[in-house]
């Protein structure tokens, strides 16, 4: 067992089975990347995660992590779970109730020399802000604290792959945003592939780089979150979220005098109210479709900062019969605008029409706690 989270080419998973539930999928996860396994309950997300950990044996499959082969059914290779360098956070955390917080973390350090363990365990508890609770037992902790113990225990195993099974499901909404922030800083410090099982689209939007969409055990589609979630033909996200587009952007510069921050993304430049974050930081932003208006000619002397030239790519009906969703291509990025049916006919909008997109607000989903513009 090696402690090299950074070494190798990440995680490669192929699974196929008929029983106990059908499963047919393949995906990769690079070091430092967050892949979300997304889908309704019963779609095979957790089974997939358990197979990676070695807790479920599929009928056919191959799982490689870095240079180590963990499973190859055809070759008869199956590494037992305790010999796989995984860190796993269970849905209800599965802490050891008879051990202290520190004991829980130490319990996952059997691979380290004895004298190193306690210092490393205390470091990890500091990382998840639980140093002062080291001597307590899980029974006396809040949901959020338990979750952080589970994360520290998973990291204590020096995982070559970090597996998170609905890690926020047992935490109330108000606490989640803070925990998202912690996971975010975590993924910068841990250079391991991270597989996140979730059925909450908000978590995908905030946390994931790539999405693997599952339905009844079958892979529907996979790809970058910003690309897949902006596709109109996939109805899987529609019900959970009001329409909009996810984009990856980078802070280019701050203009302190104008109190603005300049962001660049595949579609050009966006201005946001001054963000308290360093330049070059990568952000996940979201532009809601109802925050985008359309104009045939470039507007002059308007209060909005963000006007992008774009081309219409798709026109689809919205949930409300009076409204339509207009897909726009701007540079390498896709935007969605929600306008009235009447506006579409007045402006004679059709696929291919050149337009200007007027963006009223940009929401920053990552990092931190969603600062809105």
């Amino acid at each position, binding site marked *: 067992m090696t402690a090299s989270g950074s070494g190798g080419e990440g995680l490669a998973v192929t699974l196929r089975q008929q029983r106990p539930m059908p499963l047919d999928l393949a995906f990769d996860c690079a070091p430092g990347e967050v892949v979300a396994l997304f889908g309704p309950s019963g779609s095979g997300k957790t089974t997939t995660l358990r197979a990676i950990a070695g807790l479920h044996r599929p009928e056919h499959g191959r799982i490689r992590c870095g240079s180590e082969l963990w499973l190859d059914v055809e070759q008869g290779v199956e590494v037992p779970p305790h010999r796989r360098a995984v860190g796993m956070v269970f849905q209800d955390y*599965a802490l050891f109730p008879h051990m202290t917080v520190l004991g829980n973390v130490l319990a996952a350090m059997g691979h380290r020399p004895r004298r190193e363990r306690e210092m490393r365990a205390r470091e990890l508890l500091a990382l998840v802000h639980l140093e002062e609770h080291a001597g307590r*037992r899980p029974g*006396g902790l809040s949901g959020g604290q338990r979750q952080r113990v589970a994360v520290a225990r998973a990291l204590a195993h020096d995982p070559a792959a970090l597996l998170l099974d609905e890690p926020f499901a047992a935490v109330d909404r108000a606490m989640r945003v803070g925990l998202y922030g912690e996971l975010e800083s975590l993924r910068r410090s841990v250079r391991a592939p991270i597989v996140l099982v979730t059925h909450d689209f908000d978590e995908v939007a905030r946390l994931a780089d790539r999405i693997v969409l599952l339905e009844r055990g079958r892979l529907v589609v996979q790809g970058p979150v910003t690309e897949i979630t902006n596709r109109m033909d996939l109805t899987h996200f529609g019900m959970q979220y009001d329409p909009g587009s996810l984009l990856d952007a980078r802070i280019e510069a701050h203009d302190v005098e104008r109190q603005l921050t300049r962001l660049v993304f595949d579609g050009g430049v966006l201005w946001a109210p001054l963000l308290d974050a360093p330049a070059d930081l990568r952000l996940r932003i979201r532009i809601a479709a109802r925050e985008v208006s359309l104009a045939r000619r470039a507007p002059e002397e308007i209060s909005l900062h963000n006007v992008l030239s774009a081309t219409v790519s798709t026109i689809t009906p919205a949930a409300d019969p009076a409204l339509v969703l207009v897909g726009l291509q701007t540079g390498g990025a896709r935007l969605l605008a929600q306008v009235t049916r009447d506006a579409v006919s007045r402006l004679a909008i059709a696929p291919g029409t050149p337009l200007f997109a007027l963006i009223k607000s940009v929401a920053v989903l990552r990092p931190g706690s969603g600062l809105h513009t």
Partner: protein
Amino acid sequence: MDWTAFRLSIELGVVTLLGLVPPAIVAGRALAYGRFRGKGFVEALVALPLLLPPTVVGFYLLVLFGRHGPLGQAFEAISGQGLAFSFEGLVLACIVVNIPFAVQPVQRAFESIPREVREAAAVSGMSPLRAFMAVELPLAWPGIVSALVLTFAHTLGEFGVVLMVGGSIPGETRTIAIAIYDRVQAFDDRSAGLMAATLLVLSVAALGATNTLATRIGRRHDG
């Protein structure tokens, strides 16, 4: 007060515990986690001594232990003496009657450990043996303690099977429960009463100790 009988009962209880509890932990765990054919049948077999009248159990054991029984012959070939009406035969009989008292609490205790907690031990890098020692055994401990107490108390009090298999040989097979019966038969109510009271106090103390221990462990888990 028949001190010989008292000592014999304690010895019988301790030896029965030593002989029964370790395999009961293995069997209880296997029944809790194992998925095998005939599991229901095995569980019924484990519970059987609870339902059968002690004289029936005693009778079949006597047949097995006797000069012509397979166990009796095997034992005689090894040790040169008979199994029926001996201390060794009594131990074996007590182990058999106490199987449900030892296995069932242990099985329930292992069943009560959430599957995810055991899986967490594995994905934390613990070998099956280490997970057993560091996670399963401490969590199943209340069940194991109650198996110990139940078995011990039940061995002290067992009457029917002991009488059938052991008779009432002083210093060899006359336990305190048998001695009480003997004293009552001899109209020695004072001795019988003294010994009965001793058994009563021991049983109450054992139950009290288990309860205290169980709540203390429970409180410890709640942090």
